[in-house]
């Protein structure tokens, strides 16, 4: 690199961002590996080896939280990736209400998770409006959030209601970035709509799909606030997820143990998302 370039693209411009990122994100991430092996009260830490991990895996709610996190993350991610694509593809056609539908489906994203949680908790409560309607049709009230059979499923559904707008938005952006010339050429060659979708739209959307997939999978694996505000992890441990289990340890002051929980989450997210990302990246390169 020439001297003039070094001067004009001065590293100083990059420094503020890098410093904040390294100090607040990177250093704590490395520090967490040490603190996960200590008993820690934020001031003094005593090294205890793998004790925290043993304790974490013998906790009553750990098994349930791992299974629930997996179900929650994969189901919400799958629906957002697949249904989001279908809806976005439909909304990019010339239909009258496309603008209205885009705004409406995105709208829940503007609401906070706690706001959504409170609203749905009231809507779905035992005497809430949904059960009142079911009752009017002569059906038994459903314990949407207070029975272990339904609670996790209900949380998944609410998460999709709130989050699918973002997926649709990203897909719509991706679809409208595809050059119109491809579609014109396909139309001249007499391709059917199904062929156009599978031979043009879908392959060109692989990078977009990768974005939606990664974002919603990571989101699903890490998140807990929507669930926590709706059910508190209950009834029993039926909606406990990794994030809420870790938060409960933090709230009790078990900082070392909570950090061990974080390291487990780090490993879970990494072993799922990094290989997936490079696999999709390879597919992308092939196309």
């Amino acid at each position, binding site marked *: *690199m020439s001297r*003039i*370039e*070094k*001067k*004009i*693209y*001065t*590293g100083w*411009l*990059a420094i*503020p*961002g890098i410093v*904040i*990122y390294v*100090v*607040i*994100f*990177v250093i704590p991430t490395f*520090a*967490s590996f040490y*603190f996960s092996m200590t008993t*820690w009260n*934020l001031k003094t830490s005593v090294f205890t080896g793998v004790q925290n991990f043993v304790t974490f895996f013998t906790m009553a709610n750990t098994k349930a939280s791992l299974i629930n996190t997996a179900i929650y993350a994969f189901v919400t991610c799958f629906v957002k990736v697949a249904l989001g694509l279908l809806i976005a593809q439909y909304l990019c*056609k010339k*239909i009258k*209400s496309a603008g*209205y*539908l885009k705004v409406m489906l995105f709208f829940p*994203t*503007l609401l*906070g998770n*706690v*706001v959504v949680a*409170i*609203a749905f908790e*009231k809507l779905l*409560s035992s*005497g809430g*409006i949904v059960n009142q309607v079911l009752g009017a049709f002569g059906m038994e009230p459903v314990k949407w959030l207070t029975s272990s059979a339904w609670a996790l499923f209900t949380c998944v559904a609410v998460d999709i*209601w709130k989050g699918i707008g973002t997926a649709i938005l*990203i897909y*719509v*952006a*991706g679809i409208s*970035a595809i050059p119109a010339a491809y579609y014109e050429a396909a139309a001249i060659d007499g391709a059917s709509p199904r062929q156009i979708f599978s031979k043009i739209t879908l392959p060109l959307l692989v990078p*977009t799909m990768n*974005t939606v997939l*990664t974002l919603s999978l*990571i989101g699903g694996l890490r998140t807990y*606030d929507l669930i926590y*505000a709706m059910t508190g992890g209950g009834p029993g441990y039926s909606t406990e997820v990794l994030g809420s289990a870790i938060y409960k340890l*933090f709230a009790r002051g078990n900082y070392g143990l909570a*950090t061990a929980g*974080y390291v487990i989450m*780090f490993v879970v*997210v990494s072993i799922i*998302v*990094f290989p997936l*990302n490079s696999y999709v990246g390879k597919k992308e390169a092939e196309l």
Partner: protein
Amino acid sequence: MVKRRTVFSRALEIFLVAMTIVTHWLVFYFIIVNSFKTKTDASALNLALPKEWNIIENYIYIFQYGKGAFFNAFVNSLVLTFWSILILVLTSAMTAFIMQRRKGKFSAVSDKLIVAGLIVPASIIPTDWVLSKLHLANTLPGLILVEVATLFPFAAMMYKGFIATLPKEVDEAAIVDGCGPLTLFFRIIFPLLKPITASVIILRSIVVYNDFQNPQYYMSGSSSQTVQLCIYGLKSAFDTDYGHLFAAIVVVSIPLVIVYLILNRQMMEGMTSGAVKG
């Protein structure tokens, strides 16, 4: 054949619109109509119109709640969002510019670190520990730094992708005209990044303003709260007082709805300029 297609498409459209009335409008209506009701009236949790309109009393009550605690939290959240987004936009755009233009070891290492940050979850308690060393634990500036650091990778990658489409000749022309590094970036490059900046502002404002997890961890020992934490507290404080609870929910949701309605078009432009794909 063509006719059957359009009939099907039309039916699907009607179905989708009808569905949003049930799954979206009724939910919003439920929240709003119950925020107008008295305590006894709201406890029925139904969609009926209020027997007694209690609008003004409910909303005034919320703003005065807890000697202004709710109002303070509301202001805190607006301050948090403003500074987080301002710092995020400036730092991530500057870093992305240098990383994209300088092809050296430094750029390569930063690139790897930032891509990893897109995936790896933020470690929370060690971050709190770092903040306490900096005397920023349980403070709003501390929380602002956390929000910036968490959102930094995604914003930096968006900017970097877009800057790659700006030809280097732009820089060279500016340099020939005598621009220094700061003038080049702030007068020439930054204005060209407007589409990305618009979508970063809107999409990340939503994330910061609605953030619950970070404030819950980092502000739990503080007397000042953010509005999302406050709402969570009101959930148990107004356990049977749904009129006031729903009024609080409506107030909290208004700022982002306004921002969205104003900036929706610019956001779409920013996203379709090819930024979100990586």
